[in-house]
């Protein structure tokens, strides 16, 4: 059981140069606070919103940001699924995670996309196809520190899923696609360990 390292909270967020380069609209927004498009990137407090459309908001997160988001949910159990729009097994298991979220009041399911920023439109289309609404995440920053912070068992393969308690302590982690029943079984095992 390891805990995600928590950096002290901060008041602003500096995007890596690659992201500024790839998101000129966002860079412009910091200065102009407006981009004229519903898909505009905007910053809300210390959160970086890279997409905001009808009922879907995508926020860029480092592993530390993600740890804060998990704790802020105040849910007994938090399931975090790491996926990407091009990843076939990720797409296959996605509907089961949405269904599981709807059917379990004490569990919050969150998704973190590992897509490249310029593939964001593919991720958004997929989320819409799946009937997803609410806030979801896009991983930002370098691979290795992100993978290491989530789990020492993660090879980087997708999909991957972690289960946390309300303090952000990791109770379970696995790589690869699971069925609805397998997911339920693993979350139950984590619940017993609480």
């Amino acid at each position, binding site marked *: 059981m390891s805990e995600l390292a928590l950096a002290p909270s901060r008041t602003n967020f500096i995007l*890596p*140069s*690659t992201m500024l*380069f*790839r998101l000129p609209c966002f860079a412009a927004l910091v200065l102009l606070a407006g981009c004229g498009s519903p898909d505009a990137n905007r910053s809300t407090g210390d959160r970086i919103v890279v997409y905001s459309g009808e009922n879907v908001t995508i926020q860029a997160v480092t592993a530390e940001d993600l740890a804060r988001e998990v704790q802020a949910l105040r849910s007994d159990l938090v399931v975090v699924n790491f996926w*990407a729009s*091009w*990843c*076939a*097994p990720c797409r296959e298991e996605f509907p089961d995670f949405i269904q599981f979220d709807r059917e379990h009041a004490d569990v919050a399911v969150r998704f973190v996309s*590992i*897509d*490249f*920023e*310029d*593939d964001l439109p593919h991720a958004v289309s997929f989320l819409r196809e799946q009937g997803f609404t609410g806030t979801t995440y896009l991983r930002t920053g*370098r*691979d*290795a520190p992100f*993978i*290491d912070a989530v789990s020492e068992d*993660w*090879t*980087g*393969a*997708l*999909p991957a899923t972690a289960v946390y308690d309300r303090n952000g302590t990791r109770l*379970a982690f*696995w*790589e*690869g696609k699971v069925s609805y029943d*397998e997911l339920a*079984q*693993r979350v*139950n*095992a984590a619940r*017993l*360990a609480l």
Partner: protein
Amino acid sequence: MTLRTFIIAAMVALVATTAQAQEALSIGGALPTADRVMQNANGAAASLAQQMGPRGLAVVFWSQTCPWVVRYERRVMDLATEYGQAGVGFALVSSNDPVAFPGDAFHSMRDRAAAEQYTVPYFLDGGSEAARAFGALRTPQVFLFNAEGRLVYEGAVDDSPADPAGARDRYFRDALSQVVAGQPVTVQKTRAFGCTIKYHD
């Protein structure tokens, strides 16, 4: 042991056995499937052993339908040119089940190799035998062997898939330089995101 802890331990064990437990070839391990002849989308059928250069061999698991591979394509070709001249052989290996990934079928591999002017063998790993023997899980995943055919590096190309200029750690290049110089490789294993290989059933 109370009943509750026993149940938890049993469930943890169950989870551990059902999760993907594949391990990549260990550092120091010998080149797997060395003499198996594979179809080559960029030349004549051959084996990995035949690609071994005087200074070593780099085997890179590949899938042209993978966004990570696409971003690393030019970088890997450039390394193959540079270190090929220094005596390291290169081979790309495509192990995805073409039923699940039609874009990775052999005729598509040939098209890609021609269009992108691949300069190295591009093998079709039928049955995913090589991927299983290497313990390869994702693309691109690098396995670098020294002149004695022993694994000296396994992992990522560098730490910046989206932006070549933004790389701080160029693991593969560093390992290649050390192999060519006959030095021990300092960073032997790295982890990175990539596309999961879909093995043939």
